[in-house]
């Protein structure tokens, strides 16, 4: 279980996190949504010990990330699929990660299979498409067989087959009792995949509820989608909004 409590952070005058508090429970896929600049990525980076919060804490099973021994065995994560050295092969990229956690090459081959990358394992990662890099990132996240997963925009750049694969994978991981946090802008995908949604805006949590509950209590229509709910919730929280093309006329 990942718990985030009262996180605050400022970047040179702009408030990035303003008392962010929520929990990611095991056995569920938790969607993490909010407008651009709402603090989703910063929160994930704080959870992973990459950024330091000015106040508050983010704990994995009660421990700060930086205190974990072999952290990839506790939390698997995918932040930026492009963040790899292009000259190294996919397999070697996973290999050094495995070695950093005391894992063997056999485990690397297992996750390569799981991510469907076996055929391209010995190709330079620099030549991969975004979708393939996402699969490589997922493989890295699964490497330590962790009870919790943190995935930032995993659907990005995936082909339709990949999206279906990703959806099934996330469901399966939750079904195995893992805690899965997925940030995404694709409400339709989350409506299909997520059990629970945390909606954030301007560095705080706006809503933290089961998807079913949100849909049920949505004002207006019976056929409300997660997208409608999201837009209603974040109406006042969006920092940048284009002029509605219909009204601009």
């Amino acid at each position: 279980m990942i718990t985030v409590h009262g996180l605050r952070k400022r970047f040179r005058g702009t408030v990035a996190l303003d008392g962010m508090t929520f929990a990611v429970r095991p056995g569920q896929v938790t969607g993490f949504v909010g407008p651009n600049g709402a603090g989703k990525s910063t929160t994930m980076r704080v959870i992973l010990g990459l950024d330091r919060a000015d106040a508050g804490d983010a704990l994995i099973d009660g421990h700060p990330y930086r205190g974990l021994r072999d952290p990839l065995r506790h939390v698997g994560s995918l932040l930026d699929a492009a963040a790899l050295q292009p000259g190294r092969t996919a397999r070697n990229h996973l290999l050094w990660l495995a070695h950093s956690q005391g894992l063997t090459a056999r485990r690397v081959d297992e996750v390569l299979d799981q991510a469907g990358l076996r055929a391209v394992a010995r190709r330079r990662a620099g030549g991969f498409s975004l979708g393939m890099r996402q699969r490589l990132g997922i493989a890295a996240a699964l490497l330590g067989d962790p009870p919790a997963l943190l995935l930032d925009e995993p659907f990005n750049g995936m082909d339709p087959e990949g999206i279906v694969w990703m959806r099934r994978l996330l469901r399966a991981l939750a079904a195995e009792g893992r805690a899965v946090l997925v940030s995404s802008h694709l409400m339709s995908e989350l409506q299909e995949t997520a059990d629970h949604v945390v909606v954030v805006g301007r560095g705080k949590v706006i809503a933290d509820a089961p998807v079913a509950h949100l849909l049920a209590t949505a004002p207006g229509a019976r056929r409300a989608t997660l997208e409608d709910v999201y837009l209603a919730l974040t109406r006042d929280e969006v920092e940048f909004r284009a002029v509605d093309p219909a009204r601009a006329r």
Partner: protein
Amino acid sequence: MRSALHAEWTKLRTSPGTLGLALAVIVSTVGSSAAVAAATGCAPGGCGQDLTRLSLTGVQVGQAVVAVLAVLVIGDEYSTGMVRVTLTALPRRTTVLAAKAVVVAGVVAVTAVPAVLGSLTVGWFILPGHEVVPRAAVGSVLYLVLIGLLGLGTATAARNPAAASGIVLGLLYVFPIIAQVVTDPGWRRHLQQAGPMSAGLAVQATGDVDAVPIGPWQGLGVLTLWALAALLTGGLLLARHDA
């Protein structure tokens, strides 16, 4: 620490540039040593020069490649963003830097030994009959290792490989150049004592040790201080900064 070391070693081993750079260190060192030795046409043992040092001149060329190799070890991670993956896998940042330092030191040492021995051998064939001083050979290997650590520390602090390689090369060569144009002999000596390259290379001096501005091991000590300072700065910034 063990797994961090294992990971860093795998990373360096599987990085496509490493082998090429290591070979470049050896080739540039031995090659320029040979060129310099050949260009110095003097009677065997009788040209009043420090022949051991002369045949190790290539170290001053090879060190540039060593610096680039070391800068790349962390600099490339910064430029690709992979450093975040690394720090997610190994959240103890000082451990990461320490592991990198060990791996860099090891790889540079393994590369420097053939480079230095090759230079000495070539020098001995071109200018036969001079005595080879072991201290100069061992010192040159240590010198290159320390240059590698200096590069690693600088790159960690600068977080940009291009800027880092510029800074390291500037740091290495600025002192000798300034020392050459400074008119005051006292200041010149001080500059040569303080510069990482001019002080560190004192370890190669075998002839008239008094003519060198700083003692051989003290000079290497000065370079060690530079490397430590760079690593410390890099370590502090790495630990403090958001990745």
